[in-house]
């Protein structure tokens, strides 16, 4: 059994380490879940379009009336039912598999455009509240809530051109290669203007949109009526990459055009692995990013050219001349820095000496040149040590001045860490204003880096724990009689990091 106060300290440090570790793991898990989602399947949608759609309605003044909405609701219900039946039939019949898949896709996609409903001041949203709630729930668990996804949206217009593309789209399984994707893009970009109130067609239509979205930047352009734009699209992402400005231009043109037509917000299932390379960052982000990078660079140049003759030097000199003589010459910050530096120096010299002694043991016979050189090296080392000691004396004086100004108050505070506000080492790069890059060339490098960093962190923690354990547990063994069990536990903790046990053998010869 451990004495209470000692146990408290030990348990507290171990628990703290545990908490710290769990906390880190939690953070890591959060981050990891985002990354995992990105690696998995996700839906892509176009935020620009729903807005246009909404504004469109307003412009044309053909918003659905409350009666229409009611009708729509009924229609939705009927549709859902019909699809349920259709699905159950499809599930049994395997030969129409392709079609079923198409429906499923349509289902999955449907909530996606709604995701971006937050962007719009949609009137439709207000008028068909039921469908909104239904879709918003389906957002979280798409495949299960299929039925609710079949809801029609208020402006039930469809276009026959798109409908025709369906043939192509459905005959294809969810797009695998960029080739088929490209094909889809052409089809979908065909202008579409006629309105059809057939709701079933609309579902198919959505499915037809699968193709183009892969091709398009998911956030930027969606539907292009112009064949010129279509051509550009066909040329693929490389083109876009090379001419971001041109693309931007085209984009703005398309947006204008888009506002005149009623575009379905298309979406589709997307995997980073297959279609990741086609992703394009949104224009607004790109613009802000580029500007940001160049501004940082400019600021960095200012930093680099920061000279001693910088403006303000005269003011600083003058104000520092008025500093009171009571103040110590060395500030705590400087003191800390110097001490760190000298401590590093000490460790280095100590290692040097150990190395020298090691060599000595190793070889008995040395040439006189070597021996002389080593003698001189040691003498040099001695010089440096004296130099460091002198410097340290000054620092000690300064530290004493600081102490005096404290009126010894600090000595009352029990632990060091508790005492100094600034006991934590600072990262020296702060304020350098660079945006540095770290190039890695393989996942192995990345893994080793992560593992090493964690290993060092663990070692830091182990060191801290070891120190506390040793200072608390070793005195307990000073008593007259040591219980073997107790001894063994302490041995394991202190000498083996809790990994291995010593074997204790009872050796009672008297018996």
């Amino acid at each position, binding site marked *: 059994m451990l004495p209470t106060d000692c146990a408290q300290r030990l348990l507290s440090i171990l628990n703290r380490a545990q908490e710290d570790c769990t906390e*880190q793991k939690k953070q890591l898990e959060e981050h990891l879940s985002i990354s995992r989602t990105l690696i998995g399947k996700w839906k892509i949608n176009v935020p620009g379009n729903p807005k246009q759609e909404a504004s469109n309605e307003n412009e044309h003044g053909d918003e659905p009336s409350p009666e229409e909405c009611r009708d729509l609701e009924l229609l939705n219900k009927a549709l859902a039912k019909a699809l349920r039946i259709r699905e159950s039939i499809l599930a049994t019949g395997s030969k129409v598999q392709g079609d079923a898949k198409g429906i499923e896709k349509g289902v999955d996609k449907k909530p996606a455009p709604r995701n971006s409903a937050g962007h719009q001041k949609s009137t439709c949203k207000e008028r068909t509240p039921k469908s909104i709630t239904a879709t918003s729930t389906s957002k979280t668990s798409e495949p299960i809530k299929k039925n609710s996804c079949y809801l029609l949206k208020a402006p039930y217009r469809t276009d026959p051109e798109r409908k025709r593309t369906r043939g192509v789209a459905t005959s294809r399984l969810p797009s695998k290669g960029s080739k088929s994707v490209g094909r889809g893009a052409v089809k979908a970009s065909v202008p579409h203007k006629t309105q059809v109130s057939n709701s079933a067609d609309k579902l198919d239509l959505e499915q037809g949109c699968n193709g183009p979205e892969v091709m398009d930047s998911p956030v930027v352009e969606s539907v292009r009526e112009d064949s010129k734009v279509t051509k550009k699209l066909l040329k693929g992402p490389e083109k876009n990459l090379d001419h971001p400005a041109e693309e931007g231009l085209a984009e703005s043109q398309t947006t204008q055009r888009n506002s005149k037509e009623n575009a379905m917000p298309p979406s589709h299932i997307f995997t980073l692995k297959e279609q*990741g390379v086609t992703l394009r960052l949104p224009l607004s982000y790109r613009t802000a990013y580029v500007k940001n990078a160049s501004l940082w660079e400019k600021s960095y140049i200012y930093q680099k050219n920061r000279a001693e003759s910088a403006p303000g030097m005269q003011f600083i000199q003058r104000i520092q001349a008025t500093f009171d003589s009571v*103040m110590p010459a060395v500030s705590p910050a400087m003191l800390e820095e110097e001490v760190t530096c000298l401590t590093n120096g000490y460790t280095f010299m100590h290692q040097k000496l150990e190395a020298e002694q090691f060599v000595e043991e190793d070889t008995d016979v040395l040439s006189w040149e070597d021996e002389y050189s080593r003698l*001189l090296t040691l003498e040099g080392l001695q010089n440096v040590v004296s130099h460091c000691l002198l410097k340290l004396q000054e620092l000690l004086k300064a530290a004493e001045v600081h102490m005096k100004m404290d009126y010894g108050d600090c000595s009352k505070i029990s632990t*060091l860490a508790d005492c100094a506000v600034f006991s934590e*080492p600072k990262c020296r790069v702060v304020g350098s204003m660079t945006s*540095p890059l770290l190039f*890695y060339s393989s996942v192995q490098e990345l893994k080793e880096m992560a593992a090493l960093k964690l290993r060092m962190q663990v070692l830091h923690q182990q060191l801290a724990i070891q120190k506390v354990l040793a200072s608390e547990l070793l005195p307990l063994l000073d008593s007259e009689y040591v219980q073997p069990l107790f001894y063994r*536990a302490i041995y394991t903790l202190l000498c083996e990091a809790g990994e291995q046990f010593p074997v204790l053998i009872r050796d009672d010869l008297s018996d």
Partner: protein
Amino acid sequence: MSRAVNGRLKEAIASLCRVLSGLGINPETFRQAKFNRPEATAEFWKLLYGLLKKVCGARTSDLNDENIDAQIRFVKSVLWYYGYGILDFYHLPYDGSQGSRELLLAFSWLLHTQHVLEKLLEANKIRVGDEISVCMCDTIKTVRCKSKEETALPFSQRGETDIRYLQWLNGKLRFCWRTLHTAKLEEVAVLHKIHLYTRGCHIDPNINHLSVTETDLLRQPENCNKLVKLLESENSRLKAYLEWKRVESVYWQWMESVLDCKLEEARSLQLQNSRNENNTLQIAEFCRGNVHTIGEVEKLNNNLVRLHDELEEIVSCKKVLWNEKVKAREKELLNMREFCATVMKIEQEVKKKTEDLKYHCTHIKTEMHGSYRLVFKDDKAGFTKSVNRQSSVDVIKATEVLSELRRKEVKLEKEFKKLQKECRKKLDEIAESMDGVICIPPIKKEIHIEKSGKGNLT
């Protein structure tokens, strides 16, 4: 002051305030502070507190005090730490009612000597990349923070504690480390996949691929506007900073006039009451001191003295040996000139080495620090070529970081082993004194288990 200068000063202060936007300072406050108006005081304390908390934030995690008294204490302690030496500042009342000019002076001093603006910008920087810190500063911090809280939170454990419970806790901790290790490996693996799959998607040719944040932006476009807004506000701050850099000299001239005002006032005050009675400084009232450093200084001093003595002994011993040897060899040496030349050569070599050593011991090494954006560059792509050299982008390779990390790891490992060895020595002594019990220590492992487990990367 001429009108033109005045205008430029206004411009300078305005851009300064824009850089400091978010800390709620108003250009007018600066003017008020010059004339030591009490109404400017509160705003300045707030500014200094907010600024310093942000800049030294990582080091003072426990500070979230709303109370003005505590805020003032904090600001004073930071200025004391950096060595600001005007006593009047430290004597300012804790209710924050007066002293705006002192505060303006202190702020300007910080601005220039501690580069707080740059630090602020850096601290607020929006990070869109996948960053990794190449130093261990953050992790050491967590270790220390822990021991800080340790005393603050008394562990309420009732009854007695069995040492086996301690062992169990220790085991649990080790298990936790291992799971963390696995999670970290998974994280980087996924990260790499994202980098790999999004190649060619980034606007910056140096980066080429997307980061997690950027990819997530595409998955959830509704977050895009938010991020763009953040970037834009940072852009405006950076623009203000560049503007400030262009016109700052006029501000510093003005600050000299502020200092003159103060000195003049002080002179007239001194005439009135012959001696300023308040020229002692009791830092304990705001600063919780620096026992930490003095303890370290003393420890270091002892270590150095010991090293010095040890060296002295070795050197004197060696000298004797060397002299004897030389005497014995003297006859063998035919050519005295050759001998002298060799000696000279050795002396020069060693001298150079010693100089290096001296430099090493008195200068902080420039180690890698801070966060870097992780960028995947295939070796085949020849990444030295692909880097845009004309830009000032700071680039390091993972191999460099790795070797540095390995070096540090070995050092730490050694330190840990040393501590264990010391304990083992003590425990062995105790075992010998135990009656009727023989202790057989566990077999020495050749490879460290943790390491072999973690080194397994393939």
